[in-house]
């Protein structure tokens, strides 16, 4: 690392090389920019072309639908409290789907992560297997699993819960194993040397290190899962999404209900978002404080 290394190229050589590098960078940068712009433009044109309405014709109509919904909702503003009460149980169901699937997914994700991290896995040879399992769980959109399960199990919250839990397990499995990779293996080795078994090593050596990060990610996932569970309602998995789809789909005449459900959903998402943001902040913050002490 010292500058005394012999045989350094002459300054002229360095200058020539550097000029060459700069030119090359400029050319590449230019090409990249052109390619990017061309891709965006071509992509937009294709999408516009394959769409029923075009962007130019439609953009001034983007407020038509919200206006229709809101004006009806406003007319029937008196019915709002009643609507809110009517759909509250559906909200509880949606929250339950999200919470239960987050809980189950977190547990499964923890397992997947421990199984697929070098130095922690119980069966190191199977690390690639568990990684692929996590990848696949993550790659399948929830809606696919949910629809298949609805076929077998019938509609309702359970297919949605399972579908979201599977996806959550995959997503968290990946995130957690990244956290694990950053965790120090020293405590694990220390525990190994006293004759602790695998579960003791994981529980005492790994979990305390990664716990706050895990919780933080799980909370984030909970936010995402509330949306997911609402979306799955659209395809028959119950909860707020189901109610929202029915009333939106009926349209005029039940837009007041749609607005009420939407309000419930939106407020819930924002509240959970804020709360979990606060909590996560505290977790990571507290974590740093602990390290500094």
């Amino acid at each position, binding site marked *: 690392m010292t500058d005394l290394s012999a045989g350094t190229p002459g300054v002229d050589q360095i200058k020539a090389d550097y000029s060459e590098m700069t030119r090359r960078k400029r050319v590449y940068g230019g090409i990249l920019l052109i390619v990017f712009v061309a891709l965006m433009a071509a992509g937009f044109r294709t999408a516009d072309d394959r*769409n*029923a*309405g075009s962007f130019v*014709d*439609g953009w001034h*109509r983007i407020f*038509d*639908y919200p206006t*229709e919904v809101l004006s009806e909702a406003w007319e029937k503003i008196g019915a709002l409290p009643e609507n809110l009460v009517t759909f509250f149980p559906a909200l509880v169901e949606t929250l339950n789907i999200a919470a239960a699937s987050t809980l189950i997914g977190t547990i499964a994700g923890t397992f997947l992560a421990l199984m697929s991290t070098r130095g922690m896995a119980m069966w190191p040879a199977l690390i690639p297997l568990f990684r692929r399992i996590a990848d696949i769980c993550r790659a399948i959109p929830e809606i696919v699993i949910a629809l298949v399960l609805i*076929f077998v199990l*019938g*509609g*309702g919250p359970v297919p949605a819960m399972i579908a979201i839990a599977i996806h959550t397990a995959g997503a968290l499995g990946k995130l957690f194993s990244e956290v694990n990779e950053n965790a120090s293996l020293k405590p694990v080795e220390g525990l190994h040397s006293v004759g602790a078994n695998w579960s003791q090593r994981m529980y005492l050596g790994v979990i305390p290190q990664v716990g706050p990060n895990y919780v933080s990610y799980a909370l984030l996932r909970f936010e995402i899962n509330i949306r997911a569970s609402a979306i799955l309602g659209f*395809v*028959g998995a119950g909860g707020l999404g*189901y109610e929202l789809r*029915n009333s*939106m*789909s*009926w*349209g*005029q*005449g*039940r837009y007041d209900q749609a607005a009420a459900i939407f309000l419930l959903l939106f407020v819930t998402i924002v509240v959970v978002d804020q709360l979990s943001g606060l909590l996560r902040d505290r977790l990571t913050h507290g974590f740093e404080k602990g390290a500094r002490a």
Partner: protein
Amino acid sequence: DEISEFRIGILGGENAQDRLNNNECLREYTEKALGVETKLFAPADYDGVIQGLLGGTIDMAWLGASGYAKTYLSDPEAVEPVLVKVNTDGGYGYYSIGFARKDSGITSLDDMKGKTFGFGDPNSTSGYLIPSIEIPAATGATMESGDYFGDVKFTGGHEQTIVAVNNGDVDGGVTWADGLGDWEDGFQSGALRRAVDAGLVDMNDMVMIWQSEPIPEGPVVIRKSLPTEVKAKMTKLWDNLSEKDRECFYGVAAGEAKSFDPITHDAYEIIIEARKLKSN
């Protein structure tokens, strides 16, 4: 005023790609007739097509009666009905059929008391609108969950209703059929027949528990603001399709039928009233 393209919407109920394939010939005829590029769109549910018609992004579609009523109620100036499918027997009606599993012991609406009842799509005439009016008339109670039926659900569509009943997910449900032919075959056409053909249900395991009054077949509608000449051309094209190309007609009409014949808004007043009734 000129148009630069023509967009036809196709309702759900069958595989999206099958629907597009069945209507491909119609697209080609339209292109020839109008001389502009023509596209087919097959959104996931009834509402997708309706929104397209309302927003002016879809020019023509074959709607269900209730769907037309919704379009009309949202914006009376959006579309006008021009044609209707006429069955082989000359009529243009079909039925909403209530059914249940044989082994559940349910044979009539009376047995359904306290049980779970399944509707299809909220915008379906036979899967929701008509039964939601006629069944309360028959039972003398509302369709609210817990009033007469223990629970009332929307399954999302005709196919889902059949599966839900077959699975015991709901105890009874409603779907559509033409009422012709045999129960064992799932009638001549309709959602039940399709399910039988697909090997999904065995009609021996099912019983019919209710049948509605005839429901008028939904209209083929066209956007009002299109140039008169375009509307006339398209109406003529559909009208003549049964003579011009039998194969194509079969695909567009989704089965055997006589032809598409002209119809006007008045035929749907009653459905519109019914729908108004259901809007709170």
